[in-house]
C-alpha cells in the first residue's frame, strides 16, 4: 500500500532490500481432527507462500507435536539471537485461543502460552518492525498485552469474548494466493492489504451463510490504545508499510543508478497524486479530474521509460 510518506517509504524499501524477514508460523492444538487438519494446512500453506517470497526470508513453522510452548520459545530465542534491528519479524498464530477475562492463552500441545509470555519472547527480538497475527478465537483479548511501539498486532476477534472458532486464518492465507488482494497493484502484499482482504472475506463468509458473525478482526499498530477495525488517526501506517510478500520485480528499478532521476520524478508525481486525492473533497470536480488525469498520464509516461 502506498501512503503519503513516500520518501521515507523508499528508504524503508531500500533497507528492506538488504534486510531479512523472519516468519514464525504456529498451528496450535486443534482438539478435533477437523480443526487439527485445518490449522496445519493453513500453516503449511503460509509456509510455502512465505518461503517463495523474494529477498532474504527465514520461515519456521511449528505444527502437530512440534507446536509446544517450549518449541515456540526456542524458535523465538533463536530469532532473538539472529535478527538485527533492520530486519522484520512476523509471528502468525493459527488455532484456538481462550480468554478468562484477564489473560489470553494460545492453545498449544502441552502447556498453553499466554499473551504476556508471547510479548516477553517477542520483546527480546531486536527487529524494529514486528507483526503478530493472532487468528485464534478470543484473540482480541491478546492485543493489549502484545502492543508495543514498532509492532503491529492483528487479532481475528475484537475482544476476548468472541470465543467461537474463527475462519479468519483461512482468508489470511487466501490473501497471498489471490492476486486481487494486491489492491494498489504494487506487486506486493502488505500486512494491511492482507488484513483488509481477510476481514472482508470473513464478513462475507458469515453473511453468505446467514450466520451471525462471531468474529470481527481488529488491529493496532501504534503500540498503545484500543485496537481498531479501520485505518485512521495514525493507525494503519505500519501495517501498510509492512510488506509480507513480493509478487513481481518492482524492486529491480530501484537498484539501477541510471534510472534514479526517473524514480525521483515518479516519487514526485505519486506524492502529487496523493495530495490531489487528499484535497479531492474540497476541489471542483472538473478541475480535480483534469489535474488527476494530467498527473496520471505523466506518471504513466515515466513508468513507461522506467520499464524500457
Amino acid at each position: 500500500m502506498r501512503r503519503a510518506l513516500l520518501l521515507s517509504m523508499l528508504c524503508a524499501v531500500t533497507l528492506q532490500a538488504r534486510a531479512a524477514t523472519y516468519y514464525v508460523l504456529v498451528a496450535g492444538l486443534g482438539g478435533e481432527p477437523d480443526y487439527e487438519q485445518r490449522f496445519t494446512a493453513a500453516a503449511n500453506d503460509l509456509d510455502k507462500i512465505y518461503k517463495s517470497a523474494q529477498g532474504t526470508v527465514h520461515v519456521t513453522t511449528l505444527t502437530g507435536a512440534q507446536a509446544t510452548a517450549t518449541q515456540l520459545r526456542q524458535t523465538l530465542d533463536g530469532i532473538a539471537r539472529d535478527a538485527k534491528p533492520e530486519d522484520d519479524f512476523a509471528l502468525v498464530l493459527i488455532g484456538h485461543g481462550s480468554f478468562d477475562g484477564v489473560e489470553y492463552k494460545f492453545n498449544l500441545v502441552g502447556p498453553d502460552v499466554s499473551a504476556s509470555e508471547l510479548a516477553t519472547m517477542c520483546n527480546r527480538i531486536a527487529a524494529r518492525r514486528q507483526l503478530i497475527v493472532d487468528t485464534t478465537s478470543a484473540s482480541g483479548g491478546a492485543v493489549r498485552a502484545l502492543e508495543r511501539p514498532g509492532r503491529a498486532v492483528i487479532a481475528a476477534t475484537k475482544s476476548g469474548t468472541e470465543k467461537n472458532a474463527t475462519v479468519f486464518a483461512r482468508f489470511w492465507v487466501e490473501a497471498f494466493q489471490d492476486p486481487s488482494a494486491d489492491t494498489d497493484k504494487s506487486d506486493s502484499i502488505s500486512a494491511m492489504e492482507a488484513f483488509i482482504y481477510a476481514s472482508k472475506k470473513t464478513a462475507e463468509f458469515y453473511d453468505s451463510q446467514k450466520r451471525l458473525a462471531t468474529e470481527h478482526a481488529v488491529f493496532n499498530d501504534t503500540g498503545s490504545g484500543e485496537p481498531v477495525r479501520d485505518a485512521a488517526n495514525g493507525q494503519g501506517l505500519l501495517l501498510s508499510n509492512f510488506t509480507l510478500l513480493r509478487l513481481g520485480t518492482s524492486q529491480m528499478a530501484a537498484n539501477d543508478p541510471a534510472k534514479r532521476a526517473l524514480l525521483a520524478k515518479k516519487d514526485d508525481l505519486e506524492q502529487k497524486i496523493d495530495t490531489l486525492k487528499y484535497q479531492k473533497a474540497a476541489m471542483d470536480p472538473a478541475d480535480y479530474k483534469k489535474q488527476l488525469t494530467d498527473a496520471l498520464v505523466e506518471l504513466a509516461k515515466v513508468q513507461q521509460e522506467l520499464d524500457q
Partner: protein
Amino acid sequence: MRRAAFILVMMLACSLAAHAAVPGDCWALHKHGHAAQAQSCFDGLTQSGNAYYRAEGFWGLEEWEQAKQQFETALKQPNSPALWRVRYGMLFHQRFNDKDAGDLFQEALKMDPQNAQAYLGMAELSTEGFDSKASEYAAEAIALDPKLAEAHELLADLELSNDEPDRAVAEADKAIALEDDALDAMATHAAVELIADRSPDAWLAKIQAFNPAYGEAYVHIARQLELHYRYEDAVTYYRKAIELEPRLWVAHSELGIDLMRLGKQEEPSQELELSYNNDYRDAATVNSLKLLDSYKNYNTFSDTTTILKLDKAESAQLLPYMQTELHTIITTYQKKYRMTLPGLVQVEVYPNHEDFAVRTTGMPGLGALGVTFGEVIAMDSPSARTPGEFNWGATLWHEMSHVFILTATNHRVPRWFTEGLAVHEEGQRSPEWSNRATPEVLIAIRDKKLLPVANLDRGFVYPEYPMQVNVSYFQAGTICDFIATRWGEDKLLDMVHSFARLQTTPQAIQQNLGESTEQLDQQYLAWINQQYGTEAAHFDEWKDKLKALVGAAEQKQYDTVLRQGPAVIAMYPEYVNDANAYELMAEGYKARGDAKAEAAVLTAYEHAGGQMPDDLKRLATLQQGAGQSSEALATLERLNYIYPVKDEDLHRRLGDLLYQQKQYDGAIREYNVLAASNPVDKAGAQFDLAQAYFAAGQKDKAEDSVLGALETAPGYRPAQKLLLELQKPPEKSN
C-alpha cells in the same frame, strides 16, 4: 374483537345483581352503537365492588392497564371462575398479546374443560395465524355450546377465507338464527355478495339498523376483500369503517397497510402513525411504520413500464438483471395473455426477509418468497436468503404472472388457479425452474393427501398439515401443467377469461375442458401417479439408500458412492436439496481426479434444478478446463438468477468470459456490477471495465474507468498503458 356471545353469558352470570349494571348490559349498549350510554354504563362498572366488573368497566373505557390490574385482582380471588380468565385472555388478544391470551384460555380449559368460550378464544387466536386448528376449535366450541352464535360467525369467516362462500353463508345464517344481532355474520354475508360482484346493500342496511356506526363490519368485509386479492375495494371498505367510526384504530392501521400494498407511502404513513399515536400498536402497525421509515435506504428506478425499489447497498448489483428480466417478462406475458397492463408494475426487493414479511402481514403463506398486490410486487432479495435456496428469476416470473392474471380477471380468480398458473409459468420460462416434487410432495402423493381441485384453495389458506401449502403449490402447478398437456396451453387462457366472467372453478373447468371437477381430479391423479407414483411408492427405500450413500461419502468410501449413486439418482432424480446424490457423486469423482465424470454429474445436477453456487461454479471451472467456454458462460449466467449479490468472483469470471467471446455489452454489465460490489480489488475491477468499454469503442467511459483504477492504484501498469493508449490522438483519415 367479538363481544356479542359474552353479553348473554354475562347477563345470565350476573343476574343476581338485578338493579346494578352488569358487563353484558354495557357491551350490548356498545354493540348497538349507544356510545354515551355505554360509556356511562362502563363508568358505573368501574365503581363496582367487584374487581371483575371493574375490569370490564375499564376495558370498555379503553383504559387498558387499569383493566388488566383489575383482572389480576379478580383472578386472585378464591374460586374465580374460568370465564374471567377467558375474558382476561380476550383483553390480551385485543391488546396484541396472543401468548398471554393463549395461556389464559388454556388455564380456563384446565379449570373447565367444557368451556366453549375458551375454545372460541383459541379459535380466534388460530384464525389470525392462518392455523387450520381455528376450525377445529370453533367446532369444539359449537359442540359444547350449540347456541354460541359467535363460533358460527367465526366459522363463516373461515369458510369464506377458504373460498367456500356457500358454506360461509350457511354458518352465517346459523349465527343469525341464534342471535338476530349477529352483526359479523351479516358482514360475512355482505362480503360474500361483494366477492360475487353483487350488491351488499341489503346486508349493510341490516347491520346499520342495529348500529349505524358499526365500523367493525366494514373492517371485516375489507379483510375478506384483501384475502380475495381485491386490494382497491378493501381500501374503500376500510375508509367506510373509518367514516362510521373515526376512532376505530384497527381500521386506520389496516387501511395504511392495504395502501402500502398498493404502492402508496404518504397516506399509509399518516394512517399508521395515527393508529400508533392512539395506542394501537400491534406488530403489524409497528413493523409497517419501521418499514416505511427504512424506505429512505432504497433507490427507486422508473422507466416506461416498471418501477423498481432496491436497497441502496445492492441496487447497482440487482438493477441490470432485474430491470432487463422484467421487460422480458412483460413482453412475453403481453403476447401470451394477449393484453397490456394498464399501469406501471412496481417491484420492491427486500434484502431483509423480515421487512418482506411485514409486507405479507395478515396474508396466508408466510414462508413465501414474493407476494403480489395487484400491480405491486414485494419479494425477497437474493441476499435475504442463503445462497442456493432462492431463485429470484423464477420468483419474478411467478409474481408477474399474478399481476397479469389479477389484471385480466379484475382480481376475480381462485387462489389455486392463479398460484398454479404462476408455478406453471416458472417451468415455461426454464425447465430447471419447473415444479419439482419435493419429499413432502411425494409423501402427499403416496398418502393420497392431494385435495380435490374444487377445494384446493383450502390447502393454501388454512393448511391442515405441515407443508400443505408447498404441496398445494405443487398440485396447483401440476394441474395447470396437466391442462396444458392434455388440452393445450390456450385452455389456460380460456380459463382466465372464464374466471374474469365470474365463473366458479367447477363452471370454468366444465366449460373449457368439458369435464366435471371430479372427472378432472380423476384424470389428473392418474397422470400424476404416472409421473411420480413409482418415486412416491419407493420414497422410504430411496431415503434409506440416500442415507447409506451419505454415510459412505462421510467415510470417503467413494467407490461405494460412485457405484450406488446412479441408482439413488434414478429412484428420485428431482431431489437436489441437502445431501443429494449428485453432489456426493461429484465429490467422489473429484477425489478420483475424474474431471469429465465430475462435470457430467454436475451438469445433470444443474439440469435437475440444482442451484448451489459452489457446485455451479465448480462446474463452470470444469467446463472452462475442458475448453467449453460457452457452456461455462451459460452455467455462470444461471448464477445471476440465484445469487448475483456479494459475489465478486462470479462477476469477474463472467465478465472475463464475455470479454473473451467479444460480447462486450455483457462484459461491461458484469464488470460494472463487479465494480459496484465494493470489491477488494477496486482498481482491478475498474480496469477490467475500462478495457471492456475500450473494446466496445466507448472511449469516454473507458477513460473514466481507467482513471478510477489509477486513482486507487496509480502505479497499476496495465491501466497506465491503457490510459496512454486512450490519450493518443485519433489517427487522421485521408
